[in-house]
């Protein structure tokens, strides 16, 4: 079966890998250790410290940046047709020094193009940006969009940005101009409504609420209406909450449309037409629960399979999506929905 994996996290071994791609003065800053990269404000509790513990180099050390390991453990093992690289180095997390942040985004994009995209035609690329400087982000999108494997822009979900704010419009304009998908993914700063809680397990359980907040912000502030050909995917943010949000937002819209009349459709209609979700973490639903949920969503075109490799909460495509689901539904989840979103065709054998 054809298979698109919508959320695969490539990485570098260390921030210094970006040095050759950085412009001055930031090259010199990173070279002399002025900044050592992001560090999560919590400890991972999984055996592999955030990654699957079996993602290892030949010498037994943890692998974070090895294409060969990824090819063997992911692309070849599961015979993936395409794997969408989504990174986990999101310069938007820097809250100051926007010039450095934008330069890091550009350097990372060039690093990924050379060290990942160029190595395997199965990779689909994402453009990393510094969303805090939307004009610079738009220029970076313009710079990278011509790459034939690049199909989307990553919007990282941090703790102080909801992307419906008008200041982010240049990012959406640029993405629409280049027919790129907008992908939202959490970061190590993403929070729930009362912060991260007191435990990693709280923080991880809360992640979908940050995605709900982004969807609410994007739709009610007119991003879906203002950029009518733009399409969105929520990565690793859950999807079983979608029926609730559709019902809630439709009800709110029926009673409160007068405040946001630039929204021209029921929010649920916007979602059905333009919003997609990656499946991981698939919450261990039974086949019956999947079917009920898809019925409540009102469409079988929302879901796009993802593994989240190499992270510890990885979903195995052979198990996480129940084999009892009808063949045509499995084909949509594994292939058709993602192919339609990214404009991909089956490779010629």
């Amino acid at each position, binding site marked *: 079966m054809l298979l698109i994996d919508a959320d695969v996290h490539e990485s570098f071994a260390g921030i210094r890998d970006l040095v050759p791609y950085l412009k001055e003065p930031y090259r010199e800053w990173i070279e002399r250790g002025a900044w050592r990269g992001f560090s999560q404000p919590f400890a991972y509790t999984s055996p592999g410290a955030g990654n699957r513990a079996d993602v290892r180099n030949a010498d037994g050390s943890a692998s974070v940046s090895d294409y060969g390991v990824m090819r063997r453990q992911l692309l070849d093992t599961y015979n993936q047709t395409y794997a969408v690289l989504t990174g986990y180095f999101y310069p938007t997390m820097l809250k100051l020094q926007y010039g450095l942040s934008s330069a890091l985004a550009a350097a990372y994009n060039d690093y990924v193009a050379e060290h990942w995209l160029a190595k395997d035609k199965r990779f689909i690329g994402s453009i990393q940006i510094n969303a805090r400087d939307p004009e610079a982000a738009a220029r970076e999108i313009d710079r990278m969009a011509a790459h034939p494997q690049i199909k989307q822009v990553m919007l990282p979900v941090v703790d102080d940005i909801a992307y419906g704010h008008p200041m982010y419009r240049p990012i959406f304009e640029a993405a629409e101009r280049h027919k790129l998908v907008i992908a939202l993914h959490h970061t190590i700063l993403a929070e729930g409504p009362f912060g991260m809680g007191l435990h990693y397990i709280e923080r991880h359980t809360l992640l979908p609420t940050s995605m709900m907040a982004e969807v609410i912000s994007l739709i009610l502030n007119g991003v879906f209406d203002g950029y009518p050909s733009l399409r969105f995917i929520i990565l690793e943010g859950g999807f079983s909450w979608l029926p609730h949000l559709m019902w809630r937002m439709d009800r709110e*819209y029926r*009673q409160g449309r007068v405040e946001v*009349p*630039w929204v021209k459709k029921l929010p649920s209609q916007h979602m059905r037409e333009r919003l997609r979700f990656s499946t991981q973490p698939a919450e261990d639903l039974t086949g019956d629960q999947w079917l009920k949920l898809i019925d409540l969503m009102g469409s079988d075109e929302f879901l796009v399979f993802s593994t989240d490799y190499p992270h510890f909460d990885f979903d195995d495509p052979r198990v996480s999506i129940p084999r009892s689901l009808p063949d045509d539904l499995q084909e949509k989840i594994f292939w058709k929905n993602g192919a339609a979103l990214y404009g991909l065709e089956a490779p010629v054998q």
Partner: protein
Amino acid sequence: MTRHRVCGVSEVASNAMKPFAMGRGTVLLTRLPSGEIKAVGSRCPHQGANLEHGCVTGHAYSDQPNVLLMDRPGQILRCPWHGFEFDLSSGESVADHGKLRLRRFNVEIEGDDVFIVM
């Protein structure tokens, strides 16, 4: 087909939903800015609020976030409970293009009298 005289023409107000008895029930009448008189059922199709207490207003529209504009004054009825909007001309809900709609009655004017035709 039955005809009920419900009121005199001068009793119908603009920008308000006035109740008049019709048989054992009630019908609400209002006058659109065009002068046309509209008659609708008094119960909201959502949860049944009495639309007599609703607010007759205009149509909020915009093509630009954070810019609010209003047209079609006196042509939209908002329910007194949850504020759903109904187009008094078509009876349709504004937000979801008519999935909910007001109960409408045909109005005939004869001299000074307003009739509902059923």
